């Protein structure tokens, strides 16, 4: 079965939209990170889809790179969450608003 390109695009847009909603609505940093993962993977789906459409490996390479980056970001993110949790015992990003204005 050949999945049409439009399907990839629609799926990725849906994922991207879900991710966007998530980052706007969620206050738990872990769920925020998850939402971001969704957005990144929306991009990945698009990349791989286009890679297939153009029959060009660059897109897949790109997707691999993105995965690595995503992993790195999550690692740092989790590390920071842990550090914050240690000092505050709270997992609400809205609490992190000591600086504003």
């Amino acid at each position, binding site marked *: 079965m050949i999945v049409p390109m439009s399907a990839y695009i629609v799926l990725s847009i849906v994922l991207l939209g879900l991710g*966007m909603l998530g980052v*706007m609505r969620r206050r738990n940093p872990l769920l925020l990170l998850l939402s971001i993962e969704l957005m990144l993977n929306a991009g990945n789906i698009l990349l791989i889809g286009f890679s297939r459409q153009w029959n060009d490996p660059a897109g897949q390479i790109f997707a691999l790179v993105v995965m690595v980056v995503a992993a790195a970001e999550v690692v740092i993110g989790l590390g920071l969450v842990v550090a914050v949790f240690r000092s505050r015992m709270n997992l609400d990003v809205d609490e992190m608003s000591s600086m504003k204005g």
Partner: protein
Amino acid sequence: MQTTLAWIVLVLPLLGGITLVAWPGEPPRAATRLIGIGSILIAFALAVTIFVSLLMNAPDDRTFTSGLYEWISIGGTSLDLSILVDPLSVMMMLIITGVGFLIHLFSAEYMQNDRDYRRFFAEMNLFVFSMLLLVLAGNFFFLIVGWGFVGLASYLLIGFWYERPAAVAAAKKAFVMNVIGDAGLVLGVLLILRQLGTLDYQQAFANADQLGANSGTALAVCLLLFVGAAAKSAQIPLHTWLPDAMEGPTPVSALIHAATMVTAGVYLIVRCHALFQMSELAGQIIAVIGAATLLMAATVALQQVDIKRVLAWSTVSQIGYMIMAAGLGAYSAAMFHLLMHAFFKACLFLAAGIVIHALHDEQSLNKMGGLKKYLRVAYFGMGMGCLAIAGFPGFDAFFSKDDILATSLAAGPVGVACWIIGVVGAFLTALYMFRLLFRAFFGPEPTGGYAHAPHPSKWWMAVPVIILGVLSFVGGWIQVPFGWTGISDWLAPVLADVQHPLEATNAQVWLTIGFSTAAALGGIALAWWLFAADPQRRIRLAAVARGPREVMREAYLFDEAYDDVFIEPGRELGTVLLDEVEPKGPQGLITGTAAVIRDTARVVSASENGFVRSYAFAMIAGLAVAGVILAIVVAGVA
């Protein structure tokens, strides 16, 4: 030669003044007198020399101009610092230095007890210089300069006693009124510059017909120049400063506000007759204003109690005659009266000065009476002056005023109207002057007598009064109807270009002599009946026509009207601008913009709320907006 001398005449008083100002420390009074009076005396002597040397020239060779250096060259116009020596300016020069010298002499004693002796003479010298500059100026620009300087000197001298609020206010009023006149004069000159392309007298007068006879331009030029003349010569509606100017020391009043400066307007019209005769209507307007002024001032003078104010209003009235004559085109008559007026009015003021000095600065007629036995010189001066100004046959104004009135009769319907007013004015003149004389010198002493017996003056003060008193009689004989015409002859070269010289017929002259003599004698007689025959009579008649007399005493409420119409609204407007418009307008522009920016800054800061979700939202919303902008542009490009 004459011009060189004229330059020296011009500069001498200035040098005297500067020397006095620059004198380190306080100069001795003798030195002050020497410098102050000496410079004027020398100037007078030189002026006489010029006069004599001009007399020796043929009549058509009595006009000289002299440029010292090219003063400016700007925008197509070049101007020398130049003077014009001709019979007219020489005549004025003689009056200024001659009468000026006598008054300086008088002041030497009059001001003896003032602590600012030096300042007085310095300022008087500055005045003489300014006045000479005014009359000698060879072009309109320096005429204006002299005009302005004279105003300054007048300001300084009116406000000489600067601790007195009244003097300060009077000085300011005089200055501002004169600046209004200056503005008119400047505009008139600028109009001449615009139409004729020159500021030089000779060129302007020679090309006067380019203004167009009886054109609107000519009318505008004349009326604008007249605004200047009216301010300086205290004509309606710019006359209100002159009575107040009496706050200055009496010699100042004599020199500036009687003999010389206030006649500058007459001089201006005569000097510029070539322009004024381009507009018949302007001449008539000026004549009517002069006539109105003379009548108005005469009635006001009737009701004044302050001896100097009587004289001040009389000055306004007399200049009204001159302006009337000048407006009608009787230039030599106007100048004749100007000269005579200088004599008798200076005489009257100086005599009044003796009285005031003797009574320790008392100026009210109510506190005077029976002074003739104390102050013989003053009595002599005042008597001669009164006879002269009233036009008693044989005295100064008899000749000069009749000259004016007779020529007026020859000047058409407007002239006749002026003649009638003039005759009425003559009657009033006699009445108010002799009222002054009788109330001060005759009758009983004021109740309670004088605290200190009035002390007679020393010769410093006496001599000028005597000389001027004599001149008040002798002077008029320079020009006698059916006899000889000294003034007209002298001024003939200047007035040679008058297109329609006014010549009174014999009948008109006789008619005038008859009526004016009758008016003068009638006035004197009425004054005698009212004020001298029975001192109680005027008190019994106090209730007669109280209302009109009150209006006259208040000088027809011009001051109040000006306050209400011009000054107060202006002050109000200024305050409103300062307190309302300024903070809301030009500064409101700033504070308003600042407020908008401040509010925006508050909004921006508030949006930066510290919540990371909001930041994410902003990014995503921004993304949407970016997409929309891009889509719109793309659609537009394609």
